[in-house]
């Protein structure tokens, strides 16, 4: 009798194993969203996922693609690790998914970008097209560029170029300090800033630069003391997040440091709340979008999203990416990734903030960039829209024309 039970037990276990394999489902065009959904970075991943779903819902509500086919988002958790990203990519290809999107971490992006090249080499029928909406390491569209990878965010070189062209108009800027997280992104920002400042603003002095460990520094006051001692009036930093950006600016205020901070991600998630008062009129951001752009065509969508989810919309670039994907599928009259990729190359598209263009040489989107500055915001104030109910938002300082942020590429793309 006991052996029977044991056999039954083993059968049950096998059945559970088998059930655990996801079934292949209905006739939709699937987009796998590979981002952190658990662990320390889950907040960013979950937010992005909600925005992605809202964008896809809007397209589906308007009739989908190819005359009625719906898009579907499949969320896959990469736990913010390149290795898990590859595992999730495998899962996606297994389910017959040909489109993936990802945004958090250039390390994950690099892993994915290399892997999709190998997928095409080894199993062309499983080819995957990769829409990168926020990983900004310049390498991805330069030396490491790849036909299947399309980037819809301006890379960090372009963003630094935009900052430099803004600084060129400010007479008061004399001494610049560079501080960043000690990893690919922080270093890329530092190198670009050094190069572009020397080229375009020879009179501005770089009075110091620092790289600190990512997410580990609890007390930024030593760095603040150093910045202060250098006499800098402007700081450029690639830092992001509540810790590395929030604490840095707060420590600056505590230490009586009077500088303007130029940042990339001050508006993301809970960062405005983490920076708080210290950032008002001093924390600048370079981005393709911010909460208080007047009269933009995205307005109704954003308000609806805010109402439904209680969070602010942040990723215009992701919306642009998915809309361009839909347009490319329609143009190619097929969801075949190769045909879609060819349609995306060189595509011009009217986004909410102006015309954008997918440069065919390196698959880098060319989009106008805003320089905005942190400000108090709220329904009763001059600037109506605060970020994630923090009481702080951003206001436009300048719109940087494409010519001021476009840079040449070293990409030599191998095309199928």
């Amino acid at each position, binding site marked *: 009798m006991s052996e029977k039970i044991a056999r039954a037990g083993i059968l049950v276990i096998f059945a559970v194993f088998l059930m655990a394999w996801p079934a292949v489902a209905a006739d939709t065009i699937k987009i796998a969203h590979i981002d952190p959904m658990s662990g320390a970075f889950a907040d960013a991943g979950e937010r992005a996922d909600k925005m992605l779903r809202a964008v896809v819902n809007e397209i589906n509500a308007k009739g989908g693609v190819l005359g009625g086919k719906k898009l579907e988002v499949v969320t896959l958790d990469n736990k913010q690790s390149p290795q898990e990203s590859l595992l999730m990519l495998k899962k996606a290809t297994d389910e017959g998914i040909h489109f993936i999107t990802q945004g958090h971490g250039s390390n994950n992006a690099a892993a994915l970008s290399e892997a999709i090249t190998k997928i095409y080499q080894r199993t062309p029928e499983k080819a995957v097209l990769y829409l990168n909406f926020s990983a900004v390491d310049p390498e991805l569209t330069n030396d490491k560029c790849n036909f299947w990878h399309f980037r819809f965010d301006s890379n960090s070189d372009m963003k630094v170029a935009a900052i430099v062209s803004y600084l060129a108009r400010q007479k008061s800027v004399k001494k610049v300090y560079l501080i960043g997280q000690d990893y690919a992104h922080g270093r890329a920002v530092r190198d670009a800033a050094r190069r572009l400042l020397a080229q375009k603003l020879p009179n501005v002095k770089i009075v110091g630069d*620092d*790289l600190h*460990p990512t997410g580990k520094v609890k007390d930024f*006051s*030593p*760095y603040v003391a*150093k910045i*202060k001692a250098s006499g800098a009036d402007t700081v450029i930093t690639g830092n992001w997040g509540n810790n590395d950006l929030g604490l840095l600016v707060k420590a600056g205020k505590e230490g009586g440091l009077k500088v303007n901070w130029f940042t990339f991600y001050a508006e993301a998630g809970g960062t405005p709340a983490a920076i708080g008062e210290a950032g008002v009129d001093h924390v600048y951001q370079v981005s393709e979008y911010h909460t208080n752009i007047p009269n933009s065509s995205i307005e109704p969508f954003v308000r609806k999203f805010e109402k439904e989810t209680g969070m602010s919309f942040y990723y215009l670039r992701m919306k642009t990416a998915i809309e361009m994907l839909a347009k490319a599928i329609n143009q190619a009259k097929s969801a075949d990734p190769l045909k879609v990729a060819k349609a995306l190359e060189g595509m011009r598209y009217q986004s909410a903030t102006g015309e954008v263009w997918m440069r065919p040489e390196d698959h880098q989107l060319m989009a106008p960039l805003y320089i905005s500055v942190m400000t108090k915001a709220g329904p009763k104030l001059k600037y109506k829209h605060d970020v994630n109910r923090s009481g702080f938002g951003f206001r436009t300082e300048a719109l940087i024309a494409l010519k001021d942020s476009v840079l040449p590429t070293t990409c030599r793309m191998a095309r199928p």
Partner: protein
Amino acid sequence: MEFFLTSLLNGLSYGLLLFMLSSGLTLIFSMMGVLNFAHASFYMLGAYFAYQISSAIGFWPALVIAPLVLGLAGALLERYGLRTVHKSGHVAELLFTVGVALLVEEIVPLIWGRMAVKYAIPRELDFTLFSLFSTSFPAYRGFMLLVSVGMMVLLYVVLTRSRIGLIIQAALTHPEMVGALGHNVPRVFMLVFGVGTALAGLAGVIGGNAFVTEPSMAAAVGSIVFVIAVVGGLGSLEGAFIASLVLGIIQTFSVALDYSLSDLFAGSEVALLHDEALRSLFSIRISQMAPMIPYLVMVLMLIFRPQGLMGKRE
């Protein structure tokens, strides 16, 4: 000069916060021989409890209540968890605390979400205490210094001068004897563990608003606390105090040192520097190496003086 003085002050206040964190760990280890891997988790819980309490009835009650609640939780954890695994040996005890740390790390975002919570410095302490040249020294930092030093003195006095302290010390070395004298030894251990976690909680109440209260704050300080306890000498409060200050100051100053090995050879043509890998190795600055320093100190200390700065020989 201004830079030197501000850095010294910064180093001191950072070191004292580190001491607050490690004193509870050291206390528990010195009394019970248990390395509590969940210590930083109690620090995090302290910050979150303080946030919850202070948003209801204010910071000052939270300063008292949150550590008390955590002390109680710690005592219960000792009574119903640690004591059960005690019979399986020290490894099992250690693993139990590792498990608690894993659980807390997941439960905190479950309750309070993944975003940082708005746990702000109390209004009464949000002013500049004094200005050194042009750098202001915030009052809250002064408050941190005060609490930390107070904690050190109190612990020292209680342990070495009071009756209960003597019983605790005796219970460690001669548990049967103390038991025979009519003291409840297991309860003494429960008390010690509770006090240890309450101290971690207090550090959380104070550190949570000085920095950021978020689910990763435990992981961020987890290993540095061990470094202090080990370098100071496992179980030695005085050692932990000195180690905290030294490490705090070293870390603060190492940020300022923009020198690298290649500066050493600057000017002279060293053939080695033509090698790409070596050149990049040589161009790493001391300031970049700052995060490695505590662990390097710890490993060297363990190799050459395993009992730590002030620890007793085994």
